C-alpha cells in the first residue's frame, strides 16, 4: 500500500492505495466520495466519469497512483458555492433528466466536459458525445433535453411535454 494524495473538488485528500487500485475505488472507498459510481467492468457505462486535470476521464480506466498530485473534480464538486445545484445539475432536475440516479453523476460530468469544449452543442453532437454514458431509465430523451437546456438552448418544442 502506498499513500496517494490528490486534490478533490478543491481540497487536498490522501489515502492508501495498492498498485492495482483504480481511481474510482480510491475515490469511493479510501476517500468516501461515493457519488462516483461503478456500473460495469469494461469502461463502457460511464457512471464513473470524473474530471482529472480538467479532462473527463472514466475513473475505472485509471490507477489511483496515476492521479497522484492531480486536480480531480467529482459530482460532489458540481454544486454552486452556496450549495445550490449548479447549472447542469439544475437542468437535469428541471427536465427530468434522471430517474434512478445511478448513471447521473457520469452524465453530469460528461455534460460538463462537453459544454466546456462546445458551449451550444446540437442534438446530434450531444447524442454522439454521450455515447460513452449508458442510461437504462430515461431512453435519453430528457437527458438530451437537459444538456441542451444547460447550454441555454430552447427545448420547449422537443417532444410533447405537457408538464412545462
Amino acid at each position, binding site marked *: 500500500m502506498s499513500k496517494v494524495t490528490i486534490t478533490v473538488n478543491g481540497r487536498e485528500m490522501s489515502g492508501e492505495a495498492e498498485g492495482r487500485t483504480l481511481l474510482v475505488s480510491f475515490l469511493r472507498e479510501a476517500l468516501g466520495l461515493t457519488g462516483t459510481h461503478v456500473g460495469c*467492468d*469494461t469502461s463502457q457505462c460511464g457512471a464513473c466519469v470524473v474530471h482529472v486535470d480538467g479532462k473527463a476521464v472514466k475513473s475505472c480506466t485509471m490507477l489511483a497512483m496515476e492521479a497522484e498530485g492531480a486536480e480531480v473534480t467529482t459530482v460532489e464538486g458540481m454544486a454552486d458555492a452556496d450549495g445550490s445545484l449548479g447549472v447542469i445539475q439544475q437542468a437535469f432536475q428541471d427536465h427530468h433528466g434522471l430517474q434512478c440516479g445511478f*448513471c447521473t453523476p457520469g452524465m453530469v460530468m460528461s455534460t460538463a466536459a462537453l459544454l466546456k469544449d462546445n458551449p451550444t452543442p446540437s442534438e446530434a453532437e450531444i447524442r454522439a458525445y454521450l455515447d460513452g454514458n449508458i*442510461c437504462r431509465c430515461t*431512453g435519453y430523451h430528457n437527458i438530451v433535453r437537459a444538456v441542451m437546456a444547460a447550454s441555454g438552448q430552447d427545448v420547449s418544442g422537443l417532444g410533447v411535454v405537457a*408538464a412545462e
Partner: protein
Amino acid sequence: MPKDGGIGASPKRREDIRFLTGEGVYTDDIQLQGQCFAYFVRSTVAHGTIGTIDTAATEAMPGVLAVFTGEDFKDVGGNPAGWLINSRDGTPMREPKRPVLAHGKVRHVGDAYAAVIAETYAQAKDAAEQLAADSEIEDLPAIVDMAAAVANADNRVHDEIPDNLCFDWGWVEDNRAAVDEAIKNAPHVTTLELVNNRLVPNAMEPRASIGEYFPGTGDYKLTTTSQNPHLHRLLISAFVMGIPENKLTVVAPDVGGGFGSKIYHYGEEALVLAAAKKLKRPVRWTAERSESFLTDAHGRDHVTKIELACEEDGTFIAFRTETLANVGAYLSNFATATPTFLHGTLMAGPYKVPNVYVNLKTVFTNTAPVDAYRGAGRPEATYSLERVIDKMCRELELDPFEVRRKNFITPDMFPYTTPVGLVYDTGDYNATLDKAMEMADVDGFEDRRAESAARGKLRGMGLSTWIEACGIAPSNLVGVLGSRVGLYDAATVRVNATGNISVMTGAHSHGQGHETVFPQIVAEKLGIDPASVEIVHGDTSKIPFGMGSYGSRSLAVAGSAMNNAVDKIIAKGKKIAAHMLEASEDDITFEDGNFAVAGTDKSLSFGEVAFSAYVPHNYPLETLEPGLEETSFYDPGNFTYPAGAYLCEVEVCPETGKVDVVAFYCADDFGNVMNPLIVEGQVHGGVGQGIGQALCEQTTYDADGQLLSASYMDYAMPRADDVPFYQVDYSCNTPCTHNPLGVKGCGEAGAIGSPPAVINAVVDALNSGGFTHITHIDMPVTPSRVWTAMQAQ
C-alpha cells in the same frame, strides 16, 4: 387543493437533489465497521458435475476468513417459485430445488458453487481464483436450444426431469377444439414463426447485498438491491434460511433501477447473511457487471408460432399460438407466471376476436434463469399479435389502420370478457389510434418517404396497438390461478403531532419518483402543502407488509392503499372535529384542509385537529382513541388495462442494412395522470428499452452454453445516438373504474408497445424498396441481419 404540487402537477422531483449531488445512498455506498467481503466462485461450464472442492489452499491465503460450498447449504430450503402452474393434463409443474450454492451439479455458466469471505475485496477475489483451480467440475453436455432440450430425453438439466419440460400449458384449454376448427375452416390464415429475443435487464446499478448479524439480539439485517424488501424477507425467512421473519430486517436503500431483475431473491443474499452469522461481522458483496450478465434473471426468450384466422376483409376469427419459453436452469420466483398469466391472458389484445388458444411449454436449459423483465409476458404477447396482424394486412393488401379499427373492442362493449379470461373494464382504442395518427402526420408519410428516398434511404412506418394488464391484482383470482402470494399493497399514513405527515408505503421507488408523486396525492386529498408529506419506503422495520414495485403496480395498488388510508384519517378527523366544534359528525365537511360545520362559519384547520389527536385535552376519549395514524391494505378488484397506439418511422440503408429509428409517436391511455412529467419519463424509458430490443440487444449463448454477450462490449445497449426524441401523449384517458384514483399504470407501456412498431416499420421499409420476399425479420434488426435478409432475394 394545494396551489401547486397536487394531483396533475409536475413538481420537480425531490429525490433528484441527492442523486445530482452524489448524496444518494446505494447499497455499495454503505461502509460498515468490521466489514468483510464475499466473492463467489462461479461455474465456467454450462453443465457439470461437482467433484472434490479442496478448500485447504484457499483457506490459507492472505485475509481469508471463511469458505462456503453447496455442502454448507444442502439442508436449508430452496429458493421457491411463486406461482404453481399445472400442465394441460392436470399434472403440476416440475419444481427442482434452487439451492443457495450449487450442490452436486452446476447448471449454467455463472452458477455459484462456492464463496470466499476475506478481509478485502481483492483478497476474496484472489482466493476465489485459487478455489476455482482446486475445484473438480466434470463437464457434461450442455442443453441450450429449447427444441433440442425437449426432444432429447437423455440429457437433463435436472436429473429428475426427463424431458426438460417444466410444464405444458393450455390457455384456455376448453377453447382448443373450437379454435382448431375455426382455423381449419377460415377463409384466410396467416402464419408467422418468430423469436422474442432474450434480453438482459441491465439496471445500471449491479446487484449488491450486505449481511449483518447482531449476536446480542439474534437479529439479522440484509441491505440489498430490492424492488420489494418484504418479499425478500418473506422468501428468506419462510423458505430458504428459516430465520424468523421478526428477526430479519431487509432494507432496500436507493436502488439504481430494477426493471424486474431486482424483484427476485438470489442466493448471494442468503450467503451474506449466513456468513455474517458465522463471522459475526458485516459481509458484503457487489456484483461485477459480468456477474450481472451471468446471473441476473434474463427476460423474454420465446420461440412462437402464431396463426391468425380471418375473413377476407380482415375480420379476426381466431388466434392460435404455440410457444417454447425458456426458464433457464432454475425457476426464478415469477418465472412460471410471466409466460403464462402475464402472456397467455393478453393474447386477445384490444380486439374482439371470438376465440383464442395459447399453448406454451416452458423449458429448462443450461442458461441463466429467465423471469419478468419490464413488461414481462405482455411484450411477448403484443409482439406476436401485432406482427402477425401486420403480416396478414400485407398478404391481403389491407390497410393496417382500418384492420385494427374493424377489430377493436369499442367503448360500448365494456366490461368486456376476452376468450383468454380477462375482463377489460374501460378503454377507447380508436381514440388513441386517432391521436397517434394525428401526431405522426400519417397523411404526410409518402412525402417523407420520397424525401428519404432522395437521400438513398428506405423509409417505413409501423403501427402497434397494444394493451396490457397491470396493477397486479386480485389476490383471490391469482390464488385460483396458482399464485402462492397475495397481491395487495399497504400504506400507513401517520399524521405527526405538529400536523405534517409520514407515509409508510409497501411500494419501493427505484427510479419511479414515488417520493415526489405520492405526496402530491396525499396533499391534494388533505388540502395541505406537499412539502409537509414525507414518503418512507424500503425498510421492513418501518413499512407495512406490502408486495413492492413491479408490473406497473405502485400507484394502482400501493397508491390506492395510501388513498384509502388518507380517507380513514379524514373520517377520524371528522369525529374529532365534531367533538371540538360541538356538532354532529354528519354535519362536518372536509374541504381545502378545513373541517367545518356545514352551513356555519365554524371550522378547524387540519393541523388543529391533528394537534388535538395527540394532545387530547378536548377530545372524546371515551369513544375515540387518541392519535391520528391509519393503515390500509388494498387488494385490487381487477387488473388495470392501459392501452395505446404507437407509430414508428424508420430509415433503412439499402447498402448496409443499418436501421435508424427517426420518429416515434406514443398515444397512451393510462387513466388519470398524477404527474405528467414522470409519466412521460416512464414512457420514454420503456420505449428506449423496446427500441433496444428491436434494434440491438441480443443475449447469445453458444452451443456449449457459454454466454458470448456477457459485457457491454458484446451486448449492445441502446445509446443516446440509437434513439430519437419521442412524441408522447396521454390525453385519451379513460379512468380505471375499480380503483379510487382511476389510474392504470405507465411503467411498462413503452417496452410493450414499441418493439412491434419498430419491426413493422422495418418490414414496411424493406418491402417499399422492393424486398418483397421479406415478410418477417427477427429482432434485433442489426445491420448484418437486415443486409443478409436483403441478399436472400
